[in-house]
């Protein structure tokens, strides 16, 4: 981890001149201030840190942080971040985005990022809805299927006017199944706790996923800050995150959600170690001329 060597950075030092473009009351403000605080806690050198994102309300975040930033295309934050980290292991790499970006369009990258386990920290701002496109179901929208519960009024989102037709996915359980080497849940209305979790994720050597409830007051009137205040609890201190079975048990609690570090695998190999090993072993062993010579089919007899 590239930490600043001289000055300690206050949270406000990570704040850029750009003003966030989010709606009043958006959970992402809380996540942003937690991120500033976590970076300060880890004393990250702003000039050796890159914040990467995809597309969505939350993906505008890199511009609001006074570090290098990369705001790319929808769902592709993880591949871009992997490229950055592999090319430059000396940089601190943080990825941010929303639930649609990370679990829908970009969901296919998650298991492979878990397999590679690069030392990057991924904060998903999960508002259970698509906000930038103004209120459609997301993969984590929490609404019973119309056909499954006839008594309940099916929740009618804009693209599902007769009710949502798919079940929501459980990103924490998925991440544990994929053996993401650090899996945690945060809540934007507890920014101090969230800052601690993000800092722990940054300090974790490997791929860290922090799914963070970050309510959308504009389009989601169900999963609000009050809803999450009533439906979350802190993970007890005696929870052992290296116990995968217990971690699964926590992940499967979907009426009252546990918040904190749920799962950790400190023994997982990283693509970065493997690449460094290959370079150490082979670097400088051949040059272009020797590579050409391997393909010689005709040699002029030397005098």
């Amino acid at each position, binding site marked *: 981890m590239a930490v600043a060597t001289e000055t300690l950075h206050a949270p406000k030092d990570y704040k850029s001149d750009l003003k966030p473009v989010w709606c009043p009351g958006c959970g992402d403000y809380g996540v942003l201030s937690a991120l500033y605080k976590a970076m300060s806690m880890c004393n990250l050198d702003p000039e050796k840190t890159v914040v990467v994102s995809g597309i969505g309300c939350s993906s505008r975040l890199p*511009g609001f942080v006074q570090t290098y930033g990369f*705001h790319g295309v929808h769902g592709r934050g993880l591949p871009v971040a992997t490229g*950055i980290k592999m*090319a430059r292991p000396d940089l601190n790499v943080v990825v941010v985005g929303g639930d649609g970006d990370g679990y829908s369009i970009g969901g296919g990258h998650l298991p492979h990022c878990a397999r590679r386990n690069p030392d990057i920290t991924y904060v998903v701002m999960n508002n259970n809805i698509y906000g930038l496109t103004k209120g459609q179901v997301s993969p984590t929208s929490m609404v019973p299927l119309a056909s499954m519960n006839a008594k309940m009024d099916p929740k009618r989102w804009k693209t599902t006017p007769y009710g949502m037709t798919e079940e929501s996915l459980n990103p924490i359980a998925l991440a544990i199944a994929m053996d993401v080497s650090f899996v945690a849940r945060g809540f934007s209305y507890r920014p101090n706790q969230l800052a601690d979790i993000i800092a722990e994720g940054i300090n974790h050597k490997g791929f860290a996923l922090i799914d963070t409830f970050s309510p959308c007051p504009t389009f989601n009137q169900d999963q609000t800050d009050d809803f999450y205040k009533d439906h979350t609890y802190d993970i007890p201190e005696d929870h052992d995150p290296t116990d995968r079975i217990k971690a699964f048990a926590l992940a499967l609690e979907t009426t009252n959600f546990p918040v904190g570090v749920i799962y950790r695998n400190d023994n997982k190999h990283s693509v970065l170690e493997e690449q460094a090993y290959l370079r150490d072993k082979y670097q400088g062993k051949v040059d*272009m001329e020797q590579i050409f*010579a391997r393909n010689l089919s005709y040699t002029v007899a030397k005098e």
Partner: protein
Amino acid sequence: MSAGTATATTDVVIRLVGESGEGTVSLGDLLVKMFGSMGLDIYTFQTFPAEIKGGTVMYQIRAKSGTTLSFGDAVDVLVALNDEGFDLFGKGLREDGILLYNSDVFTPSPSPGRTDYALPITTLAKAEKEAIRHLITGEALKRLPPPVNIIGLGALLRLVSAPLEPAERYIHDLFDRKGDEIVRMNISALHSGAKFIEEEIGNKRTPHVSPMERDHDIITVTGNQMIAYGALAAGLKFYAGYPITPATEVMEFIAKDIPALGGEVVQAEDEIAAIGMVVGASYAGKKAMTASSGPGISLMVETINLAAQAEIPIVVVDVQRAGASTGMPTKTSQADLNLAIFGVHNESPRIVMAVASVEDCFWTMTHAFNLAEKYQCPVIVLSDQSLATRKSTIPPPDMSKVHLETRLLASPDERAGGFQRYKDTETGVSPMAIPGMAMGIYTSTGIEHDEHGDPGYTPELASKMKDKRFRKLAYLQKTEADHYLKIWGDEGKVDVGIIAFGSTEGVIREATQRAQADGIKVAHMHLRLLNPLPVNAINKFAARCDKILVPELNYTGQLANWLKINTEIKVIPFHKDEGIPFIPNDIYQMITSVMV
């Protein structure tokens, strides 16, 4: 390439056909190796079925004293290892050609004028294995394949009166580590094949192959291989890719040698991830590339556009294959020119290049990296299946002639006091900061942005920044586009001019030479740079041509259309889209047909 001297003129076309996965390709590779060691100039063409095993593979080898520009028109020697191959590819054999067939498998109906050699390859190979049965045991014996290819090699070398010693040396190289018995079995097989043909020859006709003296070393390599080596020589440090026919070998060759050169390779989960990683690595300061084929390039289009908008240098190789959708993955085509030039939503600047020969794969790749770095934008390089798998004999590239450019980096002064990553400049190129640089902090973004990189949507900003990005291409076009092409054939006024791109360079040169021998004046411009087009050079060339032909391997005439958009010149399109390359006669006929 200098031709060297031959003791007698050699120009022979040998076509091998057989069941895929049963050694036809290995036999072809052995033959190429032997002819290469004789100093001959080689040009091959391979066409495969899409299946791993089964279906008919065709491997054509032309060996020549002097420069070989194509795989030839008619086949002099057909080696048919099964009847299906003979039925499918037999008609390429000239009427007075030589047929060598596996008589254990089939007997072809006789044809007047053709000279036939029946070779019981399977029987001879089994006998060789039988002869060492008492020397090896159990599993090893079971797993030992009868030396079918070596029987074939011995027979063919004898048929063309080539010496067996180089093959013996090669057998030692291949099999010494497997033990004496195996070496002896293969050397015996080589002589057994040779001896069988020797007895068959009698008064029959044989093709002639003589060694050629060269004054420099020669390597035998494929197009995909030289794409990889060109990238490595250009300083490639990061490659991400996803397997796809016929581009996969680019990744395989790079993966083998890049750790030694201080770089790394990732096999991504899909092409979208691959191009994302490439963009990330280049943003972080490393030269980065990927290679794919049409379907994969289609998936990369969105992120290529991001690289253009965020001004990140990347190189993307498209080894074109035939057909839309899955099409014909193992066949060749030049139908992705439109995709390379226009494959983008909205508009964004990108450079498009095309490799022209196995040797040119190396040099154009070094130029592609230079242009990507210099203009901070994507460079798409077009190759195709026929060139990707083509084996050529070329001199090892002279590394002292490799010239490398690196991106313009912002100086400390330029970074101090509000760094403008996207500064509007005369050339359109803005000094870049790399993460880790002091005072260089900015957010790279695909969203429209001002000179600092901050998002903005005003009409003034939109037109100013788009103009800045496109100015890079205009500057390239004005200052150096004319360097990336070659002109062959006659100087001054000509009857026929040909403008083309990609793998067709050699075959057009050969047809041009044939037409010139007939007294027709012909010139040929072969483009390496397709976007932006070198319009000055094209107009100058067109002014001295009475008629202009544009031959290309696609259905709609994509280069002809692109020339129409960019210039006033009148062209005669000539397209073929059958999954196989042009032969010299196709082009020659076209030249003579416009002369009447």
